[in-house]
């Protein structure tokens, strides 16, 4: 009798204890607070602009009221920005500093030499140099530098248009751009349609080192790229391209009088997913594929037509969140073709264009062109080898900070919701640690953002999302 009671008294709590689902305490309240914060206005990207105004401009216009200018600018920015952006979770406070500029004559002599302006700055600090016009042509010239500076040469203008630049492309961009990942795998494939008539090879190593590496280095602040290459033979298309008799104004080096073309509605089927080995088993990071396609003799030369039946000069197209394709019709006379690094330069410049789009680099010239009217000529300095200007990199950094902060909050919120919803889910101690570390990085990122330390904020935001995801996708989290 006693033994039964002993078993019940000792055994029952023991049984209860041992069969209990282990749950480490998660900071639910804090996560809740963050997700509420997200709905209110929270993330701030403050930006400083320094306007260097040439003394000459000031002399010519006595009532060019400087004090007035910065307030007016601020107001119109605020009204304009609200006009085009209704999302409230991100704010852009703008600050202006206006300085007189004495050395402007040297710059004018050198015909807009931005190299003379030693304006060193970091993300979020920009300089505009305002110059007087030279009265030759009555156009206002704008030169946007590859660092964080721009020159505006202003003329007397009778009238002007203010059209808000619309953000209609946001949706398009979001479909094209890959989701953030700390690492991407970039695969360059040379696909040969038929090696029996033409053998191909390429100097991809050299080309990548020469043209792509500077970009890879630059963008590594945000994500790293692993680059690999392959050559595949017998890469058939799944369909027959259409053919046409030659038109006079297009010169082919092929003796045939017909050429082959792909229409936009055929392009979605271009990738022969069943036969072309494009998947890489090396890592689980997202893959970006870039294909240089050499058609077989029976399908050469092969071109891409747009819907208006014009042949696309680049002979290239982009597949959102997947990669890019360039079709090349090399000289077949010798039966062997080696793509030299010189030849690959133009191919690589298309690939880089596509890669920029896939990684979310916004093309500045498109945006700027749409915002200004024809009385302004705007020019852009090319970046020094890197295929990305400081303006573009800054903007991408800010965007990835915002995305990662939002994604971290959402992930943690989902995690806490799941744990609450599914009572059988085990939560081990290391999950708790990861969540706490993620919250810590999140806090640090927001603090750095307030201090306008964008690079540091990005590093913390990257850590935050990484930890939040590793907690969410931990194999021990199961029901």
């Amino acid at each position, binding site marked *: 009798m006693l033994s039964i009671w002993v078993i019940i008294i000792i055994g029952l709590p023991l049984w209860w204890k041992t069969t209990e689902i282990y749950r480490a305490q998660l900071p639910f309240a804090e996560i809740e607070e963050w997700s509420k914060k997200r709905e209110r206005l929270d993330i701030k990207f403050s*930006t400083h602009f320094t306007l260097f105004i040439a003394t000459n401009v000031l002399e010519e216009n006595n009532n*060019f009221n400087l004090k007035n200018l910065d307030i*007016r*600018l601020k107001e119109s*920015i605020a009204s304009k920005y609200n006009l085009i952006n209704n*999302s409230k979770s*991100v704010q*852009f406070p703008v600050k202006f500093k206006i300085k007189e500029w004495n050395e402007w004559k040297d710059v004018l002599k050198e015909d807009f030499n*931005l*190299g003379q302006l030693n304006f060193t700055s970091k993300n979020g600090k920009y300089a*505009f140099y305002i110059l007087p016009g030279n009265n030759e042509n009555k156009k*206002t010239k704008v030169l946007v530098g590859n660092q964080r500076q721009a020159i505006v040469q*202003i003329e007397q203008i009778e*009238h*002007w248009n203010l059209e808000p630049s619309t953000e209609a492309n946001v*949706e*398009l961009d979001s*479909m094209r751009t890959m989701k953030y990942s700390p690492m991407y795998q970039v695969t360059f494939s040379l696909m040969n349609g038929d090696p029996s008539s033409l053998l191909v090879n390429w100097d991809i190593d050299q080309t990548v080192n*020469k*043209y792509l590496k*500077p970009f890879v280095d630059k963008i590594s602040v945000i994500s790293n790229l692993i680059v690999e290459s392959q050559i595949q033979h017998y890469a058939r298309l799944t369909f027959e391209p259409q053919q046409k008799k030659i038109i006079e104004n297009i010169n082919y080096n092929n003796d045939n009088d017909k050429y082959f073309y792909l229409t936009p509605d055929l392009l*979605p089927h271009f990738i022969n*997913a*069943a036969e072309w080995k494009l*998947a*890489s088993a090396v890592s689980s990071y997202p893959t970006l594929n870039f294909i240089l396609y050499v058609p077989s003799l029976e399908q050469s030369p092969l071109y*891409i037509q747009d819907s208006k039946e*014009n042949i*696309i*000069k680049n002979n*290239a*197209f*982009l*597949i*959102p*969140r997947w990669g*890019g394709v360039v079709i090349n019709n090399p000289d077949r006379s010798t039966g062997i073709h080696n793509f030299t690094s010189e030849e690959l*330069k133009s191919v690589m410049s298309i690939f*880089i*264009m*596509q890669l920029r789009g896939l990684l979310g680099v916004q*093309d500045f010239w498109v*945006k*700027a*062109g749409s915002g*200004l009217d024809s009385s302004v*000529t705007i020019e852009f*300095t090319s970046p020094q*080898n890197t295929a990305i200007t400081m303006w573009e990199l800054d*903007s991408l950094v800010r965007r990835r900070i915002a*995305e990662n902060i*939002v*994604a971290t909050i959402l*992930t943690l919120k989902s995690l806490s919701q799941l744990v609450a919803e599914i009572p059988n889910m085990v939560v081990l101690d290391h999950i708790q640690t990861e969540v706490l570390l993620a919250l810590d990085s999140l806090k640090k990122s927001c603090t750095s953002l307030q201090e306008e330390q964008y690079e540091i904020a990005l590093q913390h935001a990257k850590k935050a999302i990484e930890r939040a995801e590793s907690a*969410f*996708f931990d*194999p021990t*989290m*199961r*029901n």
Partner: protein
Amino acid sequence: MLFLKYSQHSFLQHIIICLILLTLVVRSDNETVDGFFSRGGHTNNWAVLVCTSRFWFNYRHIANTLSMYRTVKRLGIPDSNIILMLADDVACNPRNVFPATVFNNAGRYLDLYGDNVEVDYRGYEVTVENFIRVLTGRVEPDTPRSKRLLSDDRSNILVYMTGHGGNEFLKFQDAEEISSFDLADAFEQMWEKRRYHEVLFMIDTCQANTMYSQIYSPNILATGSSKLGENSYSHHMDSDIGVAVIDRFTYYNLEFLERIDMQSKATLQDLFNSYNPTLIHSTPGVRSDLFRRPLDKVSVTDFFGSVQNVELTGQQYNLSNSDIDIEDSIYSSTLNMMDVKENIDNRYKV
């Protein structure tokens, strides 16, 4: 004069504003908006095809799954985006009189087990746990890429399951079962982590329609072979192989899908309309209350194929570098605006 000054002043202001706006382009990516870019709003397709039955007499379940595998591959989903789970290997079963083959028709026209079949989870690897792990992405860190569902917020996923089931459960391997609640929770976890854009859940088993009854996550379309209390029947048997080779629901789905090619404009409504309860010998169900697009606007290839969106690239990036004269090229090479403008107009989207 006053006007001139004003306008110059404002013009300067305008230019500066435009430049400033350039720097302010940041987008928070927490809202999913639909666009004109693709018909369905997805950029990639995935398929998870599961046969949960073991043993020789369940030959037809493996044939069902391999038939779907063949179809989605034919319609353009690459092997890297297909997770194929087969609980048994009937092709190599000693009772198979046609070794190393699987047929889905007594006519034996088509060997489903021909070249290029990539089974990702095989035999005893096909468990409820592994299936849920594939869906939710909670796999061990050393899991190879081919065993992971690496989908994102723009992925359309086809989940096809076949096996023996009952009211709100599906048996795995004769040893365990997945309930409709487990399945619903797994989908919810996927939705929470934005692992899909849309899901088509298709199940061929007895009382199949009960399996999707508990799903509560958005953008999921579900279809099953038979309602509560109804069995799902096999279509016909091959007397040489000695067992039934395909189930009715899958058979009539395939009959429709065989007539589809990559360019096809057929919709899921057409597919569902083709279901004939007298031929299938059970009542197929469709659940579309969680799905937000009208079914007659959803192409069959949105789930069974992989029709990629395409954007013609009109521009080239100006690679200004060369080995020696880097310094010269910095300032000289700018993009010709005329060309760019022209090329922007040439950009064309499908």
